[in-house]
């Protein structure tokens, strides 16, 4: 690959490394890697100024496959490494790659604190509702009653709703997409990259070895029409195989209405800057097999402009530097001295 080629217009492959990708054949991670590389090509991302930091898990191998800087760190801690790095070099294009076990179990603390601090970085949360790398134990997002190697008679854990958790941690960018919808994923990634703050993108990812089909109701043609709601800014919340249903807010309670019976201006208009509505939308978390279940929303739920931690930290330092010139001799001397003659 020559420098001129990059300058001309980078291709997605230019962001791939020479390392063999070692995910299981058919794993949803492949599609996410491909979309990230193609978004990078589209944005002509400078690979020397880009860093991927991950924790531990299948998804956390991601940095090895991106021809950028990368750190495959320790389990759950990627946001903590990212916060130190971003404090030192705020201009880096920084991506954190994590999974449901990595970010919501062992790394839960770092995850919520990263969101509230709002460093300017992107967190891609590959949610496959299972521990893949350790060969199939239930995860903090597995549905209650999940039968796995570690729960032969079903798990008794109530699962996390990652997006509701993110809203609770005052995240400034909350979105959901899926591995099986490249177009949607690309659009969300582009917005995440644009956002100045911690962008949290939950990606439903199929682990075809240990949890195959966990999200098929939302990703497959046969079912997704009735179960999936794509939220688009400024547009009414409409779904259904024939786009014949909508969502209406009855006070704070969302209700499914038939478009033939309801008028268009009664419908919930998606506004990604509305915190209260975003909170309600993240709570659309019903088991899709249940009668009367609300559809599962995808898209950008919430966006807020709020100052970044690193910007404020650096401003404090700059202010101190401007106010008082650093003088090492003065520091060594201190304010109270005496002389022995």
């Amino acid at each position: 690959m020559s420098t001129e080629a990059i300058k001309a217009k980078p291709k997605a492959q230019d962001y791939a490394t020479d390392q063999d990708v070692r995910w299981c054949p058919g794993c949803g991670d492949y599609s996410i890697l491909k979309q990230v590389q193609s978004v990078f090509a589209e944005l002509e991302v400078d690979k020397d100024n880009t860093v991927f930091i991950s924790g531990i898990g299948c998804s956390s191998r991601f940095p090895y496959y991106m021809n950028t800087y990368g750190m495959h760190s320790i389990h759950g801690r990627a946001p903590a490494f990212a916060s130190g790095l971003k404090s030192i070099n705020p201009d880096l294009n920084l991506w954190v790659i994590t999974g449901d076990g990595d970010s919501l179990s062992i790394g839960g603390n770092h995850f919520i604190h990263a969101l509230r601090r709002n460093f300017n970085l992107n967190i891609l949360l590959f949610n496959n509702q299972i521990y893949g790398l350790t060969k199939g134990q239930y995860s903090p997002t597995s549905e209650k009653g999940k039968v796995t190697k570690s729960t032969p008679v079903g798990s008794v854990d109530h699962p996390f709703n990652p997006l509701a958790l993110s809203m609770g941690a005052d995240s400034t960018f909350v979105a959901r997409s899926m591995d099986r919808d490249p177009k949607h994923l690309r659009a969300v990634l582009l917005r995440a990259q644009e956002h100045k703050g911690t962008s949290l993108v939950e990606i439903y990812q199929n682990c075809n070895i240990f949890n195959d089909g966990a999200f098929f109701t939302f990703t497959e043609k046969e079912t997704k029409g009735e179960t999936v709601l794509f939220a688009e800014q400024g547009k009414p919340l409409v779904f259904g195989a024939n786009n014949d249903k909508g969502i209406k807010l009855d006070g704070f309670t969302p209700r499914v209405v038939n478009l033939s019976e309801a008028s268009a201006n009664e419908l919930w208009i998606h506004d990604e800057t509305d915190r209260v509505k975003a909170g309600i939308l993240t709570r659309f978390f019903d088991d899709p097999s249940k009668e009367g279940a609300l559809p599962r929303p995808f898209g950008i739920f919430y966006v807020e402009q709020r100052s970044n931690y690193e910007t404020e930290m650096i401003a404090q330092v700059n202010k101190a530097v401007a106010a008082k010139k650093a003088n090492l001799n003065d520091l060594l001397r201190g304010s109270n001295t005496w002389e022995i003659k």
Partner: protein
Amino acid sequence: MTVVKEIKEVVTILFAGDSGDGIQLTGGQFTDTAAMLGNDISTFPNFPAEIRAPIGTVAGVSGFQLNFGSVEIFTPGDQCDVLVVMNAAALKVNLKSLKPGGVIIANTAGFDKKNLRLAKMDEEYTIQADKKLDGFKVHEVDVTKLTRETLESSGLGTKAVDRSKNMFVLGFLYWIYDRPMDNTINFIESKFKGKQDLIDTNIKVMKAGYHYGETCEAFPTQIEVKPADIEKGVYRNVIGNQAAAIGLIAAANKAGLDLFYGTYPITPASDILHTLSRHKNFNVKTYQAEDEIAAICSAIGASYGGALGVTASSGPGIALKGEAIGLAVSLELPLVIVNVQRGGPSTGLPTKTEQSDLLQAMYGRNGEAPVPIIAAQSPTDCFDAVYEACKIAVEHVTPVFFLSDGFIANGSEPWKVLSEDQLSDITVKFAPPREESDAAFLPYQRDEKGSRPWAIPGTKGLAHRIGGIEKENLTGNISYDPDNHELMTRLRQEKVDNIANYLPEQKLDSGKEGDKLLVLTWGSTYGVVKTAVQDLQKEGVSVAHAHVRYMNPLPKNLSELLKKFDKILMPEMNNGQFVRIIRDKFLVPAIPFNKIQGLPFYSREIKAKIKEVLN
């Protein structure tokens, strides 16, 4: 009245009272004044574990011990000559620390029924009738009453008046030791700037204490401690944690790096954070992380980005950081890990001192994960030791442990003011940018030191991946190859061992080769052992002292030096940690001597043990 003056070489005073009695401030002021008069000094504050421990109780007693003299001082002193107690609990806790025949100055107001009850003492107790006080010179002073009388017309409330009673004690001691009050007057004026009433009352009470000494005739003699014969020059006072903070700033400054300090509040390390956060103008970034793990991970992230990453804690926090330290070993990035040790295990004795995390620093990680270790020996040495830790971290591209402990972290001593050009250079070598046409970048190619390049994100042409999985030599790509793993394990170890080639050789602190006994120490026991050994040498005892500061790798000549002695004694404030390393590495029959009370050794304990071993 003409006052007789008695001359003394060394005096140890212990101020004790309730946390709210202003004990630390009184001790600190006496220290500053003594230092300015040219005495050598060493101090040791002893805090209760609870911030607002119940008033008047044994648990709430706070102490400040000060040793000053006209000779060189290396410790805060063994037992004290003068014990100042503000209440009954303070006497109960500290009487054992007073020398036979020593002086007690007791605030009688602190011995009323309520205080006796709080101290769990008999309500009928009186100082006069206490047989245990026979043989001590007891001076009862109703400090509370005298302070109130002094401020009768001030218009201040009783509470505010009582708060200044420590100034009465300070003034009284200033008279006994014939010290001028100017330094404290200046201090009061700047501390209470703009609050003239507080300035006036505090000075008035201090002067009242001084005049009380003059007129009460309780002390017919004043005691004079002449200036010590210490090296000429300009001095300041410094507390160990403060010296460590200044050392970190100085090292980053000399290296031309930003300092990033990722930490989580913990006793007794937090004061380093407090000091650093006030020096942002030196490009210091302090990051109070969500937990101990995030603290070290953020520091590693900062180092990866090209800063001097530092994290600090005490034993329990270091335990939490273990996995990340292993990652830093594997990534081979510069990092300084500060451990201000305290009593353990678990929460242990948070405000007390111990040297019990040496083996944790040495071995407390999974896998083969060698980390260089430097231990400070005194409050001022915290500066030098942490500076060296930074230099090694940056120049050898490795995590480094800096060990301090509660004793030296909170203790203070005079520090001869250094200037910037006396500090050794710290050379930073970032991997240079690379053109596409240049040879491939090899992130794990080593230089003559055995170190890999420090390649920071944002550098053109160096995009590469690192991580905690074993890496192939040179390329850094993931490798599960058995031979490669053995090679990498050895290369990481060699890199650390090789640091010994850049360190000074081990010297004897005192004594000579061939003496009958070598006392071998590390860390904060230095001053106490030095004092004990020198005293015995004056008595003609054949004993030498060596103090190790480079705990890993050990000085190259240490083995040879140890072989020059028949007997080796190793005092440690733990259950025997360094002694295990020495026995293991050099197969010498070193004798452990341990104190595990959360308190430093006394010189007399060391002397007695040396004599026992030699007989």
